[in-house]
Structure formats: structure tokens, C-alpha cells
């Protein structure tokens, strides 16, 4: 308590200094007068009395100084003094200050930007109440660690579990939105009534879907997004209760979902309809997961592990009750955050990038340290004088560190601004590269990180000059007039440059390996010809009660219409999924003639594509053996199929698959194999071979049994077309043609296959872009560093060079000498950096593809690049050295 009181009154003592000083002066005056009076009374002369009194007191100035020290907080006061002094000296050297602050801005900005990404994606909790209770449930089969959930299974999970307070199912779907302006396609979710209550997301307006609405026969109701509410209803509260047309059905709006709700990044759902009203037989089939996932909220105190064992119990019950659908399957329980972020590789990539960007900051620090060092040579005299006047060394060091901390803070403030803008720019270029990208931003934690980083870097680059001061011999400095460069200081400058080159090399090698990986991937044959291919969807309002024949007729007519667009070479519909766009559809199968496996999970599975006879031509997939489909392979002829080479090799070996039959009892079909086609890298150019399901199966869409036709039609049909020119130039013709066919049809989701492939590499391009930016920064900063040091050394050696030239050295000799000095530093840096890179790039193995982590081409190329840049950086000061006039240089001596 006493110390706290003392502290407070000392803090108060900092203020009102002048009055207090005057006050104490008066007190001392009184003291002296009384003492003098006493001495005079004792018989001394007034002069002698005064002398004695002063002697006894111990000098007024000293007493005042001691008093002042007791009064305030001397460290705080001298700190304020240091700050004022530092600001003054920064103003006096605007060039130096600007360069130092800009350098730090780059370093701190890049770090802050990346940290804000790590913070938003990995560190921040999900934006729901009690996010730690949230789990994502999925199926687990022989083929998939995360499989979508069938609706009947979900209902049983919801009823039988003991671990979750609530559960909600959701499934992405697109809806044709008509009747309010131009017809359009809206992204939406089918949700169960428990979806929003589980996430504890409340409607912004209106209410959630009720349980009785979440079943067949319930009233058609919809919750809409705040975005759609604003766009179509002008944010009017009266929107609730109005109706909208989705897929030709009228839905009553019951609520508005807040704008900040999104489960995954990417396009946000705009409409939410009750999933339980969907009566499609396929959706109601326990064996078929239609892309449905389940969120669930753990009861308080229940762990994920306990929930997992609870769900394991349910999985066993379901396997016993419905063996065909559920034998050999399980239920995967994961935290929602983990499932939203996705696999480990996101974690790992971000942390590798964070390490890379830390190197950039270290280079920036080394640069600023070098600047400070070079400057402190000029200031050596200043410091020596101050030290002679009584400033202690610790006081001088403290002042230097204050200066560097201020530089760091200056760089930090600008860096945060840079990070704020830079992050938005990078995420805008590559929105799909990261999960939770929309949650990335500057928050207090990011600001704290930037502040810490600023002070830390101030400390790092401030230490070198401070250390220099600590070691300086005052008398030597004063004697030499503050000129000259000590060997130690020279070595420090060199060490920093070597460090910068080495670090830049590590980053450049990292970026180089990423670029090479992408180049390899770009040149990877996907198994088809993606150029000049356009994928798109056409949604026609479903005709009520349309039967399979009508749907087939409408498909045929659409096909012919598309064919007639000028420039179109081939068109195919594509039921199932597209390669490389992140979707996938599979079917279980077994060979006719072999025993039927007991459950779906025990069967073999194949990716399937429901196509027409032009699909191979459209996609550019080679037919290896047998024959292609013809227009005669239709609903009236025997069902046929094409298989890919992998399916042929795996299940038929040396036998001839052609003529063999496959059973597809999930869709009630038996198909005869008529040909073998090349394998398509469906799962990704880089990761295709790591996926369990490699087999691919092509079936004529028209041969699909009647009962499945309505399902195919309601989803909106996907098409692919090949053109003789840039397919994106066809889009308006395409819309026109479709409008002629059916004015209410909507064309949506148009993307070229080049774009799809490019998107499939988005995460890699994200890492490559960032690593490239960091490496570029490192290269820039380290070449500035080399330039600065060589220029400085040349400046210091003007007299020496002049002497040499006076003694007969040629200009060429001088140039060579300076360049050799720079080259030596660069080569040492390259050698050290290469060793470092060899060790570090091993951590990147997951991120690179098709090249070795020790790729000689990358290493040599990067080393050459660095040496050339270093020599260029030396060339400017070297030319200046060459132009030294010996007369002028020597005149100073």
C-alpha cells in the first residue's frame, strides 16, 4: 500500500515540475537564511556564514537534483526525454527515417496480413454461441471417411442419440426463382427444423421452420437470406408472410436469416426450405446419401469421444436393422470447426507461410540494423560527447533502443494498414483457396500481434547499434574525431548482408519449388482435353406431373437446340458429377456372375457419368477399345456402359471386359460393357491417385430407369459443350438459344474447363502467390541491403581508393575490387542459404508436386538469380568508386 501510494505521488510528481522546483528553492532559501542567521549570531561575518552554511548543506544544485530524483519517476522522465529526442533526430534525418519505416512496413505488414489469415481461419472460434459444443456428423464407409448421410438414417440418429441436445440436417441445392423480375437460379439449403436452433442462429426477422413444417405435406415455407431480403424486398419487414416461387412452387416467407451467417465460405445460401417435405424416393432411400450433412450440438459436459461411442452404438443398431444399406458403415463425429477448416494441409500450409514471412521480417530488421549501424558511425562523436558530459552508457543504450522502438512502431502502424488492404486484395483474387476466408480481418488479437512484432523488431534491429555503443571507447572516438570504421563494425555489416542473402535464398527456393510444382500440374494430362470446353446448367421449371418420356423428349430437344448454336462442335449432358470441380457421384457395382456382396459398403464403387453419345467427343476422352455410344443406345435398347482403363484393369485383369455385365442395383440397372476409355483425373490433378475410388463408369442418360428421371430433371441439368473458339464467347448465344427453347429456363453456373482446372489449383496458387510475394520482398530487401552496405563501404573508402588510383590503379581494378567485395558476400550467403534450404524445404514436401524438394534446377536458378542481383546492387556504388577523383579524395587528408 505504502509503495503504491509512493508510486502514485511520484507519478504526480512528473507534472507541474516548474512550480515544484520553485517551491523547493524557496524552502532551501529559508533553510540557508536560518543557518546564516545562526552563524552570524555566533559571530561569523555574513560572507563566511553563507559559505559555511552552503558547505554544510552540500551544494544547492546537488540537493535539488537529489530532491528531483526522489520526486518523480526518473526512468519515466528520461523515457519521455528519450522519446522527444528520438522524434527530433528522426525529423532531422527524414530520408533515413522514411527508408527504415517503409522497410519495416513491408516486413510487419506481410506478417500481420498472414497472421490475420491464420487468426481468422485457424485460431478464432466459429461465430456461433458455444462453438466448442458444435459437431459435424457424416457417414463413414469403406470408400469414404466422410460420406453424406441418407435421410432415414439421419432421422434415426436424431431420435436415438443420447449425446446431443439437438441436430440439424442440411443439403445444398439450387432453386429456380421466378415471378419477381428476371428468372434466376438461387443457391440454397434444404434444412431440417433443427438446423438453425442447433447452431443457435436466430432469424433476423420472423421465425424458424417448425417441426410440423419439416415433413411431407407440411406448408411450403422458406427462410430467406438478409441479402435476398434487401435485394428483392427492399429490406421491408412486410416481406415476412409474402410468397416467392421456387422451382414452380409458391413458398411463404417466414423468416430472414442474418447476413453474417455462413457455414462454409463460397457463395452463401439465399433460401432455406424444409428438407422433410422432399418426397423423392431416392432421397427417402436409406442406401443413398444425397449430399446431406448433419450439424449437432453436444450436451453440456459430453466430449466428442463420448459422442463418438454413442454414435458407434447407433451405427451398430442400424447395421443390424438394415444390413444392405448400413453393414460395414459407421458414423464420423468431428468438431464443426475442424470439419469446416478441412484437412491438416490447410494448417500446415499456413504455418509454413507464417514461418516464411517471419524470415522476411528478419531481413527487414537486418536492413534497418545495417542502416542504424552505418548511421551510428556518424553519430559516434555525438554519443562520445554526451557520454563525456555524464550520460551513462545504459542511458545511451536506452536512448538508442527508444529510437528503434519508435521506428518499429512507425513501421507497425503503416504495416497494419498495408495488411488490412493487402489481405483483402489477396483474398479477393483467390476467394476459394481458403475455408473461412470471409472471417479474416483485423481484430484486437491481430493488432496485438502487430504491436508485439513492432516492438520485438525494434529490439532486434536496435540491439546491434546499442551493442556497438556499449563497447565504444569514448576517448578513442573523441581522439579519432568520430571517423573511421572499426573492424568489428565492418564484420557486423557483412554478417547481416550474408544473413539476408541466405534467408532470401531459402524463400526463393521455396517459391521456386511451388512455381515448378504448379508448372508440372498445369502440364499434367487430366485424361481429357479441357480447352474450349464449357460447362453450364440449364434449369427448366419442372412440368407438374411430367413423366419420364416427356422429360426425355425435352432433353433431346434441348440437345438439338444447343447443337445448332454456331461454333458448337459437340454437346453432352452430364448427370453425375464433373471432373475436378470438387463434386463427385458414385455408384456401387458388382460383376454379373460373381456373388452379390451382402451390403452396399462391401461392394466396389465407381464414379459415374450420365452422358450422351457425344460426351467422349465433347470432353476429348480417348476411346481405347470397343465402341462408343450411339444415338441408338436409348431407352428402347439394351442398357450399355463404357468403363475406364482403371476399372478394366482392376476387375478384369487380362480378361476382355467387353460384353461383360455390371449390376447397378442402386439404380435398378444391369449394363453391358461396350468399350474402354481413358482414365480421367477426377479427384484432382495432383491428388487423383490418392483417392480410393478410381473406377469410372459412363452410362447413357436416356437409359436411366423412368423412376429416376424426375430427380434428374428437378436438379437442373448440367451440360458440357465443345466449341471451335473461346467457349466463354458463346455464353450469350447459349442464353439466347435456351430462351428460344423455353423462355422460363435459366442458364447458370457457366464456367470453362480451363477455369475449373485453375480453380482446382486455387489452394496451391494461394500458397505460391504468397510465397512468391514473400520471396520477392526478401529479394528486394536483401538487394537494398547489399547496395546499402557496399555503397557505405565505398563511401568510407574514398580516400583509400583515391590513394590506390594515385598510385596507378586503373578504374577497372577499382570496379573489380568493389564487385569482388559484393560477390564474396553474396556467394557466402548463397552457400549458407543453400544448406539451410536443403534442410527446410523438406518441410514443404506436401506442398510441392512433381519436383524433388532438392530440385537442382530450382536451386541453381535461384542461386544465379541472387548472385546477379547482388552484383547489380554493387554495380552502382562500384561505378561511383570508379569515378573517384584522386586529387579531391586526397585533398581531405
Amino acid at each position, binding site marked *: 500500500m505504502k509503495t503504491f501510494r509512493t508510486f502514485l505521488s511520484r507519478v504526480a510528481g512528473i507534472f507541474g515540475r516548474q512550480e515544484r522546483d520553485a517551491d523547493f528553492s524557496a*524552502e532551501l532559501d529559508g533553510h540557508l537564511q536560518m543557518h546564516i542567521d545562526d552563524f552570524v549570531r555566533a559571530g561569523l561575518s555574513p560572507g563566511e556564514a553563507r559559505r559555511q552554511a552552503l558547505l554544510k548543506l552540500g551544494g544547492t544544485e546537488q540537493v535539488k537534483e*537529489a530532491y528531483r530524483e526522489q520526486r518523480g519517476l526518473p526512468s519515466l522522465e528520461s523515457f519521455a526525454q528519450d522519446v522527444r529526442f528520438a522524434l527530433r533526430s528522426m525529423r532531422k534525418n527524414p530520408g533515413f527515417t522514411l527508408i527504415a519505416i517503409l522497410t519495416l512496413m513491408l516486413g510487419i505488414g506481410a506478417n500481420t496480413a498472414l497472421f490475420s489469415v491464420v487468426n481468422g481461419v485457424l485460431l478464432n472460434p466459429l461465430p456461433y454461441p458455444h462453438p466448442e459444443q458444435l459437431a459435424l456428423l457424416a457417414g463413414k464407409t469403406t470408400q469414404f471417411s466422410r460420406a453424406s448421410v441418407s435421410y432415414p438414417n439421419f432421422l434415426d440418429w436424431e431420435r436415438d442419440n443420447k449425446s446431443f441436445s439437438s441436430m440439424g440436417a442440411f443439403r445444398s441445392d439450387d432453386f429456380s426463382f421466378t415471378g419477381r423480375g428476371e428468372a434466376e437460379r438461387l443457391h440454397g439449403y434444404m434444412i431440417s427444423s433443427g438446423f438453425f436452433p442447433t447452431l443457435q442462429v436466430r432469424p433476423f426477422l420472423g421465425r424458424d421452420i417448425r417441426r410440423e413444417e419439416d415433413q411431407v405435406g407440411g406448408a411450403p415455407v422458406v427462410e430467406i437470406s438478409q441479402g435476398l431480403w434487401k435485394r428483392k424486398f427492399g429490406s421491408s419487414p412486410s416481406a415476412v408472410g409474402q410468397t416467392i416461387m421456387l422451382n414452380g412452387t409458391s413458398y411463404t416467407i417466414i423468416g430472414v436469416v442474418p447476413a453474417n451467417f455462413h457455414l462454409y465460405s463460397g457463395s452463401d445460401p439465399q433460401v432455406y426450405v424444409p428438407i422433410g417435405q422432399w418426397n423423392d424416393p431416392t432421397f427417402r432411400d436409406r442406401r443413398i446419401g444425397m449430399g446431406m450433412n448433419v450439424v449437432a450440438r453436444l450436451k453440456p459436459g459430453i466430449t466428442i469421444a463420448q459422442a463418438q461411442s454413442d454414435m458407434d452404438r447407433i451405427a451398430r443398431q442400424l447395421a443390424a436393422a438394415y444390413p444392405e444399406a448400413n453393414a460395414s458403415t459407421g458414423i464420423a463425429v468431428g468438431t464443426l470447426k475442424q470439419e469446416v477448416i478441412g484437412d491438416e494441409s490447410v494448417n500446415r500450409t499456413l504455418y509454413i507461410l507464417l514461418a516464411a514471412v517471419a524470415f522476411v521480417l528478419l531481413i527487414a530488421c537486418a536492413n534497418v540494423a545495417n542502416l542504424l549501424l552505418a548511421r551510428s558511425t556518424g553519430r559516434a562523436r555525438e554519443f562520445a560527447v554526451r557520454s563525456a558530459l555524464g550520460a551513462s552508457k545504459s542511458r545511451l543504450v536506452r536512448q538508442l533502443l527508444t529510437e528503434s522502438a519508435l521506428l518499429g512502431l512507425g513501421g507497425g502502424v503503416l504495416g497494419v494498414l498495408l495488411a488490412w488492404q493487402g489481405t483483402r486484395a489477396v483474398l479477393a483474387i483467390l476467394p476459394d483457396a481458403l475455408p473461412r476466408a470471409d472471417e479474416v480481418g483485423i481484430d484486437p488479437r491481430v493488432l496485438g500481434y502487430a504491436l508485439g512484432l513492432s516492438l520485438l523488431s525494434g529490439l532486434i534491429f536496435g540491439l546491434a547499434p546499442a551493442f556497438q555503443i556499449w563497447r565504444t571507447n569514448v576517448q578513442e572516438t573523441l581522439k579519432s574525431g568520430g571517423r573511421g570504421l572499426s573492424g568489428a563494425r565492418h564484420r557486423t555489416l557483412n554478417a547481416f548482408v550474408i544473413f539476408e542473402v541466405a534467408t532470401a535464398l531459402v524463400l526463393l527456393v521455396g517459391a521456386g519449388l511451388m512455381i515448378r510444382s504448379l508448372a508440372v500440374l498445369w502440364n499434367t494430362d487430366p485424361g481429357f482435353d479441357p480447352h474450349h470446353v464449357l460447362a453450364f446448367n440449364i434449369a427448366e421449371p419442372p412440368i407438374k406431373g411430367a413423366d419420364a418420356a416427356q422429360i426425355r423428349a425435352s432433353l433431346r430437344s434441348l440437345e438439338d437446340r444447343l447443337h445448332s448454336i454456331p461454333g458448337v462442335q459437340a454437346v453432352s449432358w452430364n448427370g453425375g458429377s464433373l471432373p475436378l470441380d470438387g463434386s463427385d457421384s458414385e455408384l456401387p457395382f458388382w460383376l454379373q456372375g460373381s456373388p452379390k456382396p451382402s451390403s452396399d459398403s462391401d461392394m466396389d464403387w465407381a464414379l459415374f457419368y450420365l452422358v450422351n453419345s457425344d460426351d467422349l467427343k465433347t470432353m476429348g476422352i480417348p476411346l481405347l477399345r470397343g465402341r462408343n455410344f450411339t444415338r441408338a443406345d436409348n431407352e428402347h435398347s439394351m442398357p450399355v456402359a463404357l468403363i475406364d482403363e482403371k476399372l478394366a484393369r482392376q476387375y478384369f485383369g487380362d480378361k476382355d471386359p467387353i460384353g461383360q455385365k455390371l449390376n447397378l442395383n442402386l439404380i435398378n440397372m444391369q449394363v453391358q460393357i461396350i468399350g474402354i476409355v481413358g482414365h480421367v483425373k477426377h479427384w484432382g490433378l495432383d491428388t487423383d491417385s490418392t483417392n480410393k475410388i478410381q473406377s469410372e463408369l459412363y452410362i447413357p442418360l436416356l437409359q436411366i430407369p423412368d423412376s429416376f428421371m424426375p430427380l434428374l430433371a428437378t436438379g437442373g441439368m448440367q451440360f458440357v459443350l465443345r466449341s471451335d473458339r473461346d467457349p466463354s464467347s458463346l455464353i450469350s448465344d447459349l442464353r439466347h438459344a435456351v430462351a428460344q427453347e423455353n423462355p422460363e429456363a435459366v442458364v447458370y453456373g457457366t464456367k470453362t474447363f480451363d477455369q475449373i482446372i485453375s480453380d482446382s489449383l486455387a489452394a496451391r496458387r494461394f500458397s505460391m502467390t504468397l510465397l512468391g510475394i514473400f520471396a520477392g520482398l526478401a529479394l528486394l530487401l536483401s538487394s537494398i541491403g547489399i547496395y546499402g552496405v557496399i555503397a557505405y563501404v565505398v563511401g568510407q573508402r574514398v580516400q583509400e581508393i583515391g590513394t590506390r588510383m594515385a598510385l596507378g590503379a586503373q578504374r577497372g581494378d577499382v570496379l573489380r575490387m568493389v564487385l569482388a567485395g559484393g560477390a564474396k558476400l553474396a556467394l557466402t550467403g548463397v552457400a549458407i542459404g543453400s544448406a539451410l534450404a536443403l534442410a527446410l524445404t523438406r518441410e514443404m514436401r506436401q506442398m510441392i508436386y512433381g519436383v524433388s524438394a532438392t530440385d537442382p534446377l530450382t536451386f541453381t536458378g535461384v542461386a544465379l538469380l541472387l548472385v546477379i542481383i547482388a552484383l547489380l546492387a554493387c554495380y552502382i556504388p562500384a561505378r561511383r568508386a570508379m569515378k573517384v577523383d584522386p586529387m579531391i579524395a586526397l585533398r581531405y587528408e
Partner: protein
Amino acid sequence: MGEKRDVQQGTLALMVLKTLESMGPLHGYGIARRIEQISGEAFSLNYGTLYPALLKLQQEGAVSSEWGLSDNNRKARYYRLTRAGRKQLERATREWQETSVIMARFLSPEGSR
């Protein structure tokens, strides 16, 4: 260096407090003279050191001060013991006495056996 001065300061502070207790409110010069007299001039006090010590006591709340006039009509700051200062004096006095008893016992010939 710091430690030695602290002990001296502590001693000085105790003397100041005791002086103020026995003499009542007093200015700095008076306190200095009084301490010299009591110590029988054996204690050569540098008067200047008294003022930081007085300031410290004031910051701790042990003394308060106000301006007044000396016997000879000189303007002087008078220091006065506060209640907290009185407590501090009692405690410090007790501690000193205990310490000196212990030290005396310790340093006496019997104590060393």
C-alpha cells in the same frame, strides 16, 4: 551502492520521525540541528540529504507539511507527524530495539559461546 544508502536513509527517516514526535511541527533546518544535537555532534549530517528523505516520508504519508514562519520571521516549510507516521515510528522503534537487543546479545562475549 544502493543498499548502503538505503540503510542510511532508513536510519535518517527514523531519526526524523522521532524528532518530529518529540519536538512537534518543525522545519527542515530545525530537524537537522536537532538530530546533530541529539547525536552529540558525533553524527556529521550533510543537511542536504535530509530533504529527499523528508520528501520520501511525505510521499509515504508519514509526514505532512505546510508553509509557516520561523522564530526569526523566515519563511519555512513545517513538517508534522501524521497518524500513519506515528504508527510507522512505533513499529520502526520496536524493530530497532529488538534488532539491537539481538545484535547486542549476539556480539557480547557470552553470546558467542
